[in-house]
């Protein structure tokens, strides 16, 4: 595993903070004092059981010792290195970021690490904004139309005015005619210019932030703890929700759709039913007469829920992410192809369950439940629209688990049969392109 575990250092810190002696802690945990000493100096790995017992004695969570909560930030740092081109040069190459030591850097310089991640995010936003603007200029029919209008009227004005100014013996009828044309086209010119300016202003306002609208909405939801309390009975209803924090029009549209959906969910699935279904989305769906995806959404978004949720469309594009610590979800682009979420797409109306394991230190196992819904919004003869959702619940259970990742580019798994592109991590895992025998199946 590429990520360095600094658990030992944290164990030591915590023990000293509580004023406990090494010998006493060791005895409570059931190991020798000398072994604990080796652990504290990161000279021995900590087994899962010992970790749990240490956590109990030191009165912290196991995750706090292994730094599992930092995993998402480590992934972001790696992604930042990839974006900056370090991946291509190879870890440790002159001037490139030491990608394999990202976890260590985070441990020693959390402030700098946070700054790097923040800047990488900002760069990604700006790149997206530029891309949108370029796209617009090249392909926007409205812009093209507006420009054509301006150029046509300018051309007419120019030619007509030149005739009036340069023709010495111009006939009175013609003069009148041309004056009228000139007047008409200069008005057109003004109208066209105003339209163009208004249009460019609106583009500027909407894209100034350059934030992906989906991310904006997720940030807004996260800020409210992923629960829209206003939509429960006794809350202020849809009107009580403040959408002004969302800068872009697109984000507001997405948020409004989301809120409308959530309000319908809250109506159809009262809290009593939600609490009584034992966390089972199919049961909740049946009890309340709603679709399973709606039930999943409701379960993931109730207050205090520790369950993550991801929703995708028929092409596998992620429509919504409610993250959960330890389960890495890519910010943009395609996710790990082995997620049961995608297997569910080909089995609409069928529960798909799996125990999944994410790469990383500590306990990163999750119970995954996925479901795909096929709908026919345009009726019997219309197209089939598929969406799939997956609930992600932390599940420290033993047994065989699917080896998953977040996305291939920054995944450390060396021998994954579903890998589609090389990872930037090349230290432990041979993360090259798939073996020759697999090429034919990849394409």
């Amino acid at each position: 595993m590429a990520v360095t575990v600094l658990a030992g250092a944290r164990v030591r810190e915590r023990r000293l903070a509580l004023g406990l002696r090494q010998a006493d802690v060791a005895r409570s945990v059931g190991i020798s004092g000398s072994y604990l000493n080796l652990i504290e100096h990161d000279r021995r790995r900590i087994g899962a059981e010992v970790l749990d017992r240490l956590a109990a004695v030191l009165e912290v969570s196991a995750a706090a010792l292994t730094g599992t909560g930092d995993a998402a930030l480590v992934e972001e740092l790696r992604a930042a290195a990839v974006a900056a081109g370090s991946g291509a040069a190879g870890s440790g190459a002159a001037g490139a970021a030491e990608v394999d030591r990202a976890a260590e850097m985070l441990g020693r310089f959390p402030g700098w690490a946070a700054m790097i991640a923040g800047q990488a995010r900002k760069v990604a936003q700006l790149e997206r904004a530029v891309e949108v603007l370029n796209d617009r200029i090249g392909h926007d029919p409205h812009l093209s139309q507006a420009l054509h209008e301006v150029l046509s009227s300018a051309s007419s004005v120019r030619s007509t005015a030149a005739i009036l100014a340069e023709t010495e013996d111009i006939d009175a009828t013609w003069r009148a005619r041309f004056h009228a044309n000139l007047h008409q086209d200069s008005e057109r010119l003004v109208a066209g210019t105003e339209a163009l300016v208004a249009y460019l202003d609106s583009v500027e306002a909407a894209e100034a932030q350059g934030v992906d609208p989906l991310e904006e909405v997720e940030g807004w939801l996260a800020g409210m703890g992923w629960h829209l309390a206003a939509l429960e009975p006794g809350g202020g209803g849809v009107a009580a929700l403040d959408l002004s924090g969302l800068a872009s029009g697109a984000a507001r549209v997405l948020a409004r759709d989301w809120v409308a959906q959530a309000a319908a969910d809250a109506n159809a699935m009262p809290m009593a039913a939600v609490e009584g279904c034992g966390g089972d989305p199919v049961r909740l769906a049946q009890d309340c007469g709603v679709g399973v995806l709606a039930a999943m959404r409701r379960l993931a978004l109730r207050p205090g829920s520790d369950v993550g949720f991801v929703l995708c469309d028929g092409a596998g594009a992620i429509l919504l992410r409610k993250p959960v610590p330890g389960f890495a979800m890519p910010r943009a682009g395609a996710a790990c192809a082995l997620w049961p979420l995608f297997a569910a797409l080909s089995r609409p109306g069928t529960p798909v369950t799996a125990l999944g394991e994410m790469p990383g230190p500590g306990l990163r196992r999750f119970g995954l439940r996925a479901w795909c819904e096929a709908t026919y919004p345009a009726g019997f003869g219309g197209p089939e629209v598929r969406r799939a959702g997956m609930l992600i619940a932390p599940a420290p259970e033993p047994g065989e688990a699917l080896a998953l990742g977040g996305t291939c580019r920054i995944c450390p798994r060396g021998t994954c049969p579903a890998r589609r592109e090389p990872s930037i991590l090349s230290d432990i895992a041979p993360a090259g392109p798939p073996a020759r025998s697999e090429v034919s199946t990849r394409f």
Partner: protein
Amino acid sequence: MLIEDEPNIAEAIRYVLMRDGFRVSLHDDGTEAVARVRAAVPDVLILDLMLPGVSGLDILSALRADPGMAGLPVMMLSAKGLGRDREAATRAGANVFMTKPFSNADMLAQVRALAASCPQADRG
């Protein structure tokens, strides 16, 4: 012959050319363009790129495909001066590409040159 859908531009061009001694027949859309050109046998054709419902490039290609009109000098007019459009017009067989807004003097000079190069130069 002038095929241009903007009436005020068409009127201005016509006036300038007529003052210089040319006869100008005008059409404001691209329908039956090839047939009309064939019937009129002009010395010079001024053709707008963007006509309602029809592309000036398509008209030009159709004209050039007809051996009787292979030598007809054509000036293409367009509000879009992008390299791509200019190249496309030249490839389709335009002799001159003029972007709007143009100066009347330039336009006249080009038309005169094109008329002089035309085999039937002795017509008005």
